[in-house]
């Protein structure tokens, strides 16, 4: 699906845990998530902490939409 969106000229960032899957599939901009069953918020942590993590990583994804890259890029996250 990522490829179809990108083919149409719409920049897309894939947020996923299995980076190798995304790179194999051909996603160009990738932001890592923390796990598969809970990509953006660990249920064993307090709600506030989950929010902070989600806010940060989605923020990285939004910024990634504005960045010019010339090859598949995995964007780094801080938390």
């Amino acid at each position, binding site marked *: *699906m*990522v*490829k*179809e*969106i*990108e*083919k*149409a*000229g*719409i*920049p*897309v*960032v*894939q*947020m*996923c*845990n*299995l980076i190798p*899957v*995304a790179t*194999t599939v*051909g996603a*160009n*901009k990738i932001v890592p*998530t923390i796990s*598969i*069953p*809970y*990509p*953006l*918020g*660990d*249920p064993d942590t307090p709600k506030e902490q*989950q*929010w902070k993590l*989600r*806010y940060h990583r*989605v*923020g990285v*994804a*939004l*910024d990634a*939409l*504005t*960045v*010019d*890259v*010339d090859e598949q890029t995995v964007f780094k996250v801080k938390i």
Partner: protein
Amino acid sequence: MKAIHYINQFFAGIGGEEKADHKPEIREGLVGPSLALNSMLDAEVTHTIVCGDNYMGSNTEEAVSTILGFLEGKEFDIFVAGPAFQAGRYGVACGTICKAVKEKFNVPVLTSMNEENPGVEMFKRDVVIFKGGKSAAKLRDDVKVMAEYGNKVLTGKALGPADEEGYFSRGIRSQVWLESEATAAQRGVEMLIRKLKGETYETELPIPKQDMVPIAPPIKDLSEANIALVTSGGIVPIDNPDRIQSASATRWGKYDISDIENLESGVYKTIHAGYDPTAADLDPDVVVPLDVMKEYLREGRIGKLHKYFYSTVGTGTTQAEAARMGREIVENLKEDKVDGVILTST
């Protein structure tokens, strides 16, 4: 059983390059190579269609339409084109007409051409193309291979894999029980022993080449941009109104999020069977981060949040279906002039 054969102007004896504009015609009975085909096929070749390679190349739509018209109302169980050897325009013509006939009449279609023929790359996925010789000197051999396979198809006999039957793989992988009954354990250990010794071996799962998509131009101003959320994590409203499947999905849904601030447990859930659903059901925002997107919208970090999020399920879903769903979703995104997408996967 009846068959119809397609050949070009040269093999019909009409002429060479100078006659390549020959308009399509259908003749009763046999012409040129169809004599050979008729003698080898267990079906009667009732008609031969002749068309100039240039005509087909330059007026493809018309040519195909005319030929399909010829075939209306005719009885035929199989359609054969060529063999085209290395003749590029002829190979492309054979591929084109075979594909069209298959789509319209749903009969088995066969053709043959040399591996160098551009028609191979263009049509091998859609049509059974036999590996043919380089020149017309191989005519009888190439026709024979097609006829033998054609006979199997017509009598409903079991068909072997591409390299055994002699055609270019269509990229369709299918289960086969080995006659030798060699077990996976035996095959694996033998393959390893050969690899360790430096001997040749054949992998049963060739790693396909990656096909990359050109990178879309980045967004210039995020604060003016319209951003959409898409997910393959299967987050849907609690009653799964679009009945999206938990695996091997062929359906996707779009859900209006314009009036809510986040995805609440009990209102939304996940139907994706391939991962532990506990966390997602407890707080769907961990898969589709609507809550933070709404915050970014309030802050003015993004200009607009597209009013729907799009959802389907990623496990077991074929690439073909995922691509189709992707295209359909793209239509919706384009309509609202979405500038960028965040796609979350599980």
